C-alpha cells in the first residue's frame, strides 16, 4: 500500500470496534491490519474450547484482557454427556497465567474447574476483576476462598448454576476488609446450610461494597437477614433473595417491606425459595420498576402469581413455573405489554398426568397480548397446529422459540396429526428466528419446512422426530446460518451426514445421540475431514468390538484447528486418519 495511516491511528480506530465479527473482518483486510488488530485485541470469545489451543490463542493475541470459554455441549445440562468427558480449564489457566499477566476477565461455561485453577487465577493476574463460572463444576469453596483472598480488585464473582462442593469453612470471610470493589456477587447455587459466621461475613461484605449492583443470594440466607442486607445495599439493581419463608410475624413483614421500598433502583428479582404467598406483598413497592422477574424456584400458585405479576406493569422478562396456568398467562398478557421473554418451566416434569391447567391456550394468549414477545421457552403437555399457526401469525418478531411438549411424539391432540404444519408456520413467518427447539410428533416434512424457510436459524434442537435421513438432509442443506445442531433419538443416519460433510465445517458443532449413524460412517467422516473432530462417545466399549454398521451411542462433531484432543476419557474415540489406519 502506497499510503497508510500510522499504526497508532489505526489502533485508536480499532479500539472502537468491539464486536468479534467486526474485529474478524478487520483482520482479513490485509496483512498489516491483521498484525495491528491482533496486537490490540483485548477480548476473545471461544465457543468451543477444543476448537483451538491455548497456545494458538496466545500466539495470535498476545495482549488479551478478557477471555470467554465454553466447554461441554449443551446436552450436558440434561446429563447426556457422561462424566469425565472433558472441558477442563486447567491447561488454559496454566498457559494464560504465563502469557497474560494483565488478564482481567475470565468467563467460563460448562467447564470443569479445579480449586488449583482458581488458586492460580487468583495469584497470576494482579488486576483480575471478573470471574463468571456458568454451569461449571469441579471446584469447592476452598477455590472460592483463594479468589476472595487474593483478588484485590475483584468486581464480579458470578457462580450461576455451577455445581460447587461446599466444604464448610467460611470463604466469604476471606475477602479482606480492604476489598470494597464488588459490583456483582452471584452465589445462588451454593448450599442451604450456612453458619452464622458465614451470614455475618456476607453482611459485612455487602456493607463495605458501595458499588454493589447485583446480588444473588443462596437458599441459606434467611428472610430476616434479607432486610439487613437490603438496608446496607439500597443501590442494588438486581436482587436474588434467599429463602423466602419464615414465621408470619408482622414485624418481619414490615421490616422487609420497608427495606424493599428503600431499593429504588431494583430492576430484577429472583430467588424466592419456599416462598410463602403472604410475604410476597413485601416487594410490591418496587414492582412497578421491575423489568425482570424470575420465579422459577418458587412454588407459588396461580392466584398469588397473578397478584404479584399484575403489580409489574413494566416487566420485560418472566421466568415462572407452570403453576401460573392458562388463566395466569391470560392475566400476564393483559398487564405486561412490554414483555419480551417468557419461560414456563414444568413443576412436575415426570408426572404422567398434568398437575396444572397449562395448555397451548396460555401461550397463545401471551402471543396475542404482548406485541414485543420475542423469546419463548414453554413446557406443556398438549399442543395443536392451530395454536402454532396463531402464535406464528401474532408474533412474526420471534427470535427464540423453544417448545417442549413433555411426552415425546405427542400429536396435535385434536386432529391427531403431526405438528409439522404448525412448526412450519413458525419458521415461515418468523423470519428472524435464531433459535428453535422442536417437540411433539414430527415427520420429515417439518425439516423440509425448516430447511426451506429458517435461513437465519443458528441453533436447532431436535428430539424424537423425523422418519428418515431426509429430515437431517433438509436441515443440513437448507439452514444457511446454522451453527449448532443437537439431535437425540431420531432415525437419522449416515447418508445425510456424509452428503453434507462440508457443511459441518461451517458450524460450531453437531451432537447426535441415540440416532442411526454407524461407526463406519464416523470413521469415513473423520478421515475425509481433517478439520473436524469426530468424537464417538460410547460407554458400551470400543466401537470396533461391534459390527461397523452398528450405530454409535453418541456422536459429537466440531470444527477445530487444534486437531484431536489429548484429554479424552476411555469412552471417547476421535475418528482421525490414524485411528482409521489402525482399525482397518
Amino acid at each position, binding site marked *: 500500500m502506497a499510503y497508510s495511516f500510522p499504526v497508532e491511528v489505526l489502533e485508536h480506530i480499532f479500539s472502537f470496534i468491539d464486536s468479534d465479527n467486526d474485529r474478524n473482518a478487520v483482520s482479513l483486510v490485509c496483512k498489516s491490519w491483521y498484525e495491528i488488530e491482533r496486537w490490540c485485541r483485548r477480548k476473545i470469545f471461544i465457543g468451543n474450547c477444543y476448537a483451538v489451543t491455548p497456545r494458538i490463542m496466545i500466539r495470535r493475541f498476545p495482549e488479551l484482557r478478557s477471555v470467554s470459554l465454553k466447554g461441554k455441549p449443551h446436552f450436558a445440562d*440434561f446429563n447426556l454427556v457422561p462424566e469425565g468427558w472433558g472441558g477442563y480449564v486447567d491447561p488454559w489457566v496454566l498457559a494464560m497465567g504465563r502469557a497474560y499477566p494483565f488478564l482481567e476477565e475470565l468467563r467460563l461455561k460448562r467447564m470443569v474447574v479445579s480449586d488449583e485453577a482458581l488458586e492460580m487465577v487468583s495469584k497470576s493476574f494482579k488486576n483480575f476483576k471478573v470471574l463468571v463460572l456458568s454451569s461449571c463444576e469441579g471446584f469447592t469453596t476452598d477455590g472460592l476462598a483463594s479468589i476472595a483472598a487474593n483478588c484485590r480488585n475483584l468486581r464480579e464473582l458470578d457462580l450461576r448454576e455451577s455445581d460447587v462442593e461446599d466444604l464448610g469453612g467460611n470463604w466469604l470471610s476471606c475477602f479482606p476488609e480492604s476489598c470494597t470493589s464488588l459490583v456483582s456477587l452471584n452465589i445462588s*447455587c451454593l448450599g442451604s446450610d450456612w453458619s452464622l459466621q458465614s451470614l455475618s461475613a456476607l453482611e459485612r461484605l455487602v456493607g463495605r461494597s458501595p458499588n454493589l449492583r447485583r446480588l444473588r443470594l443462596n437458599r441459606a440466607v434467611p428472610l430476616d437477614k434479607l432486610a439487613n442486607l437490603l438496608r446496607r445495599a439500597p443501590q442494588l439493581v438486581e436482587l436474588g433473595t434467599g429463602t423466602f419463608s419464615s414465621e408470619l410475624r408482622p414485624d418481619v413483614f414490615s421490616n422487609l417491606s420497608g427495606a424493599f421500598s428503600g431499593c429504588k433502583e431494583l430492576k430484577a428479582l429472583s430467588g424466592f425459595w419456599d416462598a410463602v404467598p403472604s410475604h410476597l406483598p413485601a416487594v410490591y413497592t418496587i414492582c412497578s420498576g421491575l423489568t425482570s422477574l424470575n420465579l422459577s*424456584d*418458587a412454588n407459588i400458585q396461580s392466584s398469588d402469581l397473578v397478584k404479584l405479576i399484575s403489580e409489574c406493569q413494566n416487566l420485560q422478562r418472566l421466568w415462572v413455573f407452570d403453576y401460573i396456568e392458562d388463566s395466569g398467562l391470560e392475566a400476564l398478557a393483559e398487564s405486561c405489554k412490554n414483555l419480551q421473554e417468557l419461560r414456563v418451566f414444568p413443576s412436575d416434569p*415426570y408426572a404422567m398426568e398434568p398437575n396444572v391447567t397449562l395448555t397451548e391456550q396460555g401461550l397463545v394468549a401471551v402471543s396475542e397480548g404482548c406485541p414485543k414477545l420475542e423469546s419463548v421457552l414453554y413446557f406443556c403437555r398438549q399442543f395443536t397446529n392451530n395454536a402454532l399457526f396463531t402464535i406464528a401469525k401474532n408474533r412474526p418478531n420471534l427470535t427464540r422459540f423453544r417448545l417442549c411438549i413433555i411426552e*415425546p411424539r405427542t400429536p396435535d391432540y385434536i386432529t391427531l396429526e403431526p405438528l409439522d404444519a404448525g412448526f412450519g408456520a413458525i419458521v415461515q413467518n418468523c423470519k428472524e428466528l435464531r433459535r428453535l427447539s422442536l417437540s411433539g410428533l414430527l415427520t420429515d416434512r417439518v425439516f423440509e419446512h425448516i430447511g426451506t424457510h429458517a435461513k437465519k436459524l443458528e441453533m436447532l434442537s431436535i428430539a424424537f422426530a423425523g422418519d428418515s435421513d431426509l429430515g437431517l438432509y433438509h436441515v443440513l442443506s437448507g439452514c444457511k446460518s446454522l451453527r449448532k445442531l443437537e439431535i437425540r433419538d431420531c432415525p437419522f443416519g*449416515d*447418508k445425510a451426514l456424509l452428503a453434507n460433510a462440508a457443511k459441518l465445517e461451517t458450524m460450531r458443532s453437531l451432537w447426535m445421540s441415540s440416532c442411526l449413524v454407524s461407526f463406519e460412517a464416523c470413521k469415513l467422516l473423520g478421515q475425509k475431514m481433517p478439520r473436524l473432530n469426530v468424537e464417538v462417545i460410547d460407554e*458400551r466399549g470400543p466401537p470396533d*468390538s461391534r459390527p461397523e454398521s452398528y450405530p454409535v451411542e453418541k456422536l459429537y462433531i466440531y470444527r477445530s484447528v487444534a486437531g484431536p484432543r489429548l484429554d479424552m476419557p476411555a469412552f471417547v474415540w476421535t475418528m482421525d486418519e490414524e485411528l482409521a489406519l489402525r482399525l482397518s
Partner: protein
Amino acid sequence: TLAQLSHVCSYKETEELRQRKSQANGKILRMSSESDNSSMNFDETALTLGLPGKSRPSVGEKSGVKRGFSKMVDLNLHQKQSNDQENDGSQVEVAEPANSPASKAQIAGWPPVRTFRKNTVKSCKYVKVAVDGAPYLRKVDLDLYTSYQQLLISLESMFSCFTIRNCMNDGNLMDLVKGTEYVPTYEDKDGDWMLVGDVPWKMFVESCKRIRLMKRSEALGLGNIQNSCYNSKDTSIVIKHK
C-alpha cells in the same frame, strides 16, 4: 427412498438378532438359577435388555400413531414381551417400575430440564453411582424412587450395557455364561460403607452419600452378606459379562 429403507431394515435385523440372543441368555440364566441352592430369586433381578427409549411402548399405545424408528423399537419390545409371557410371566413385571402409576420409567435427559429446576418442594438428592470395573460414573436422584426395588431396577437398566456388549460379540453363547454378582453398597453420612437394603428406605435416602456396586467377592468384608443379601431378594444385582 429404497436405499434409505434398506439401511433402516438392516439395522432392524441386527436388532432382532440381538433380541433373540438376549432371550437365549435369559433362559440360560434362569436355568442356572433353578439349580442353585440359594433362595435368591433371580427372576426378579434378571436384567432386561432395552433399546434406547425403552419405555416407548406406552407412547405408541397412547397416540396410536407410530413412526418409522419407534415402529421398529415398539415391534421388538412387544415381540419380546409376548414371548416372555409364554415362558415366564414375571419377566414382564420387571420391565416396568413396580410401584408408582403416577410417574413412569424415565428416559435419560428428558424432559430437558436442568436438575436444579425440578420440583423445588423437596431438594434433589443426587448421588453418584460407581460400578466396579466400569469406566464411568452415573448419577441418580434418590428422590425419584420410593423403594429399594425401584432404585435397583433403575440401576440395572443403567448398567445393562455390560450385557449388551456381550450379546453382540460373535461369542459362544452356549458356553458357560458366568454371572458376576454385584452387591449394591453405599457410603453414609459418617463415611461408613453399608449394604443397600439394611435400613428403611427413607433413612437410606437421608444418609446415602454415594453408591457403589461392588463385586460380591470384595463385599464379603461388609459382613452379614449371607443373611441380608442372599436372602433379601430385593438387594442383589446380576450383571452378566464374559
